[in-house]
């Protein structure tokens, strides 16, 4: 399984990288390579040129912008996983990262690479969608910010045009309330791609009433899917077990399931309801423990 021949360049700036992409329709970005390289080894991907952006300083780093945590696209997944800023301000991402691939792929794989790959089962994309995050995209015409909902168009398909480069990912920060998160996943083996995943973030007020709630389901549909109905149903409630289960089930029932050979549609819907409820429960319980001794 040797890749077909290609050229390799490591431009010094993002601008130069985009120029190279614009000049060659078959050129492709490589950052971590953890999903691209196996595709090339199997000759399913045959770029004419790899444009390596992994070391561009412009694309590194984790920044607290107040209303969002901004992660440079070429930031390694392990860096985000070990970041105190991410743990404090984007706890849902911190909860999801241990599920991304294996430790050995997280040392090389990047946050932006996962997002740009847009696997329907990908954990980072699910978190981004759940939090209504956005993607900074550098295109030949200039830079623009694309909401996650608009970015993930289909399985492995994004709104990024040929010649564009993801430069940063914005994970919104919830400012008020006692915040808790939950991330659940079911896969054939512990570290496999998810058959179905659920991401939940919850804010409770001082009396334990829910002031904000976001639930997302990954792996079940063509793209990661935020279950707005569940969020709406639970805001204002005390998030009892029954309310959570009902909200998750109603949300799962409304999903537009994408068929795949690995699991029946019924399985995915059932798992979405189950995992959604568990993620919400975990988030509620974590939020409720806020301010209490660990």
């Amino acid at each position: 399984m040797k890749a077909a021949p290609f050229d390799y360049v490591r431009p010094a700036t993002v601008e130069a990288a985009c120029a190279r992409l614009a000049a060659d329709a078959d050129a492709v970005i490589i950052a971590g390579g953890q999903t691209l390289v196996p595709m090339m080894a199997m000759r399913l991907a045959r770029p004419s040129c790899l444009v390596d952006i992994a070391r561009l300083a412009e694309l590194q780093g984790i920044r607290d912008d107040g209303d969002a945590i901004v992660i440079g696209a070429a930031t390694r997944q392990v860096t985000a996983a070990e970041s105190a800023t991410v743990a404090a301000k984007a706890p849902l991402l911190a909860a999801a990262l241990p599920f991304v691939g294996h430790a050995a792929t997280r040392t090389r794989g990047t946050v932006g690479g996962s997002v740009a790959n847009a696997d329907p089962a990908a954990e980072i994309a699910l978190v981004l969608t759940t939090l209504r995050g956005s993607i900074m995209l550098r295109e030949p015409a200039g830079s623009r910010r694309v909401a996650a909902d608009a970015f993930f168009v289909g399985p492995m398909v994004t709104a990024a045009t040929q010649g564009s480069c993801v430069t940063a990912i914005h994970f919104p920060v919830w400012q008020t309330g006692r915040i808790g998160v939950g991330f659940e996943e079911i896969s054939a083996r512990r570290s496999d791609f998810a058959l179905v995943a659920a991401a939940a973030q919850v804010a409770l007020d001082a009396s334990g009433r829910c002031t904000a709630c976001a639930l997302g389901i990954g792996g079940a549909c063509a793209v990661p899917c935020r279950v707005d109905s569940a969020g709406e149903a639970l805001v204002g409630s005390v998030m009892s077990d029954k309310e959570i289960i009902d909200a998750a089930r109603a949300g799962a029932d409304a999903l537009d399931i994408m068929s795949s050979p690995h699991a029946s549609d019924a399985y995915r819907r059932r798992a979405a309801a189950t995992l959604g409820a568990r993620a919400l429960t975990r988030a509620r319980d974590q939020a409720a423990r806020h301010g209490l001794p660990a």
Partner: protein
Amino acid sequence: MSAPFKFVSTNRRVREDRRFVVGRGNYVADIRRDGTLHVAIVPSAHPAARIVAIDAAAALAMPGVHDVVTGAELAAAVEAMMNGLDTPQVRRYSLAVGQTRYSGEWVAAVAADSRAIAEDAAEQIEVAYQPLPHVIDVEQALAPSSPLVHPAHGTNVLLDKSFVWGEVDRHFAQAPRQLSFRVTWGRNSTVPIETFGVLAAWDPWHEMLDVWASIQMPKYAEQIARALRLPANAVRVHYDVDVGGSYGVKRGIKHTVLVGYLARKLGRPVRLIEDRLDNMRSGDAHGPERIFDVAVAFDDAGIVKSMKMRALDNVGAYAGRAPFQLGKPIGAIVGPYRIESVQYRALSVMTNKAAQEAVRGFGQSPTNYAIETAIDRVAAALGLDRLEVRRRNFIRREEFPYLIPSGTRYDSGDYHTVVDKVLAHADWPALERERDRLRATGMLAGIGIAACLEPSGGNSSFEPLLNEKNTTTTWMDSCRIMIDGLGHVTVTIHTTSSGQGHETLAATVVGEVLEIDPDRIRVVRPDSLASLPSNSPVGSRMAVMLGGAAFHAAGKLRRKLIAIAAHRLGVAADALSYAGGAIADRAGQRLEWADLVTIAHRNFHLMPPGFEPGLEVTHVEQVPTGHALPTPDGRVQMYPCHSFEFHLVLVAIDPELGRTELRRYLIGHDCGTVINPHIVKGMTLGGIAHGIGAALMEEFVYSEDGQMMSQSFMDYLLPSAHEVPKVEIVHHCTPSPFTVLGQKGSGESGYLGAPAAVSSAINDAVSPLGIVFDKLPIRLTAISDAVAAARDRNRDR
């Protein structure tokens, strides 16, 4: 010789480990020869198609490409691969000839300066196919209207042989009860992490073909020679190549014939290392794919009197060793039970799938799955405890050697004691309470049980049993020992290493007999021309056969040393005592090891008359009990020894998600005398991991249009450390009366019972919902779907 031993059964380090922990294994891909050309394969995209034309012009024009060979060229130059059955119209070559018979089958091969260039060139080869009708399902392949995989053979049936041992019809007619069922063993394999690879170099001046391969194959050199039309002593296989795991499957004849042919044609060393895609879809190393239809006749106490079994195996597009995997289990066809009569029908049927190869256990694990399911079903039908039913049916300790209906005598065993030991260690009531506690939390939980035998010692008696024209009764192994002029001991063994610690085994046994520290004994593997006959570590045979050969060779050497001393000291040999390599008489006269070595190597005038100088011995060991051809009614002693294992598994299942966790895993294991405990433990734990994979996640899935869907490790799932629980091993030892140290084999241990045990556990967990799983693997999605459907049914009532 028996316990207590000085070296046997002690926890000595396995000496092979040392080279592996420093990364100095000698794998085939590590071997470099100047001028080597690399091979890549052009695979067929169709499950069945006529090859209309192959255009390699563009490929041949590429820089660095040296040759393209097709099936037409190869078939004219080599013999078809051997087929142990009498089916001459089922011909097999390394490359498809005229027609392809499974998706992925090798159609052409490119030899180039690098693997990357060879793959570039392979893509440029244009093959025109005319698709033909294909058949994937084995029951459809039996239908008269089915497409034929080998039209000249006239049918898809490779083998259809029935045996009746005992009064089956009468027992069924008279039995108070009977039940029947079907279980299916999905197509999987042991899939080593190192793929198969081979390097061959032809020297025209020496007229020698040197071969280095990741090989575990009896009679490999002979088969290569035969196919390439070379004298067998013109093929030199290098046994000092380390094999990165095999577990039966690395037979590599088609790879080696191709590479050997190219090496001779091109005058350059040629190398083919399968990549993972080559390996999965067309390495021809898939394992059994079998449908068992079983009926048992029993009474109200759960005593099983008779069994009928039809084993229908989807062998793929070519014969290989696979049909014999229906024969070997005949040697333990009743498992550990006193079933009095058996009717067995072995059906080996071809379809347009990849060919099978010998897999760990050679068909025993699927058969054990069927037998254990039968026992569980009998217990369920009667409302009896599954353990109790087994106890009532077990062969009893005092009944050994025990003759089973198909003609094999089980050598020894004490099944009741092993079970008692495991239950005591497990604290059976606590296990049941834990299961109940899990159930009370809303989980599904079950306890799985499997009791089965590991026939060991190897033999090829299934060959004459399934093919009367095959009269093979020899299945030897060998050992040579030399004490050199300075008194150091070197032992040679005659097969490759694939991780079972045979160097350690041989040194331990020789050390035990000669009473010298095994760590001072060097073990080497000469090439095939310098070797004595061997048949490879198959059939869980090496502890018995290499152990036996080493033991007897060391015994010969010890007797020679004593004879030399007797002559030197002027006393009878039986008046001498041998201790730690020194020999003394009752009067206190003594000869040390160094003295004896000097006499043998330098003082011929002091040697006994008629003795050869020096201290070298060889021994070629035949299989104990393996001397006869089958009887006309198909009875034969299959293997000499029978290890026993008893599995106990506690499983917890998330009813919504289907996620299955093995919460506790115990195995009682009796392989007679253990030569090296580390090695046996490793075999057992590794076998269980293989079995867990087969039970829960491993399968080569084919689509209806004949495409193999599980082409990579993204789809063919191997258990990681998360999926294999900590296993508690409980030992017992009933030595074999037929082996030199009482040892039995353990190369297949764990694998032979784990799939049955895990299946049993899952079925125990889901039976309250009225669900039965009768097919392996049992995936979590299937469990979840079945539970949801059962709950819907129960709600609707």
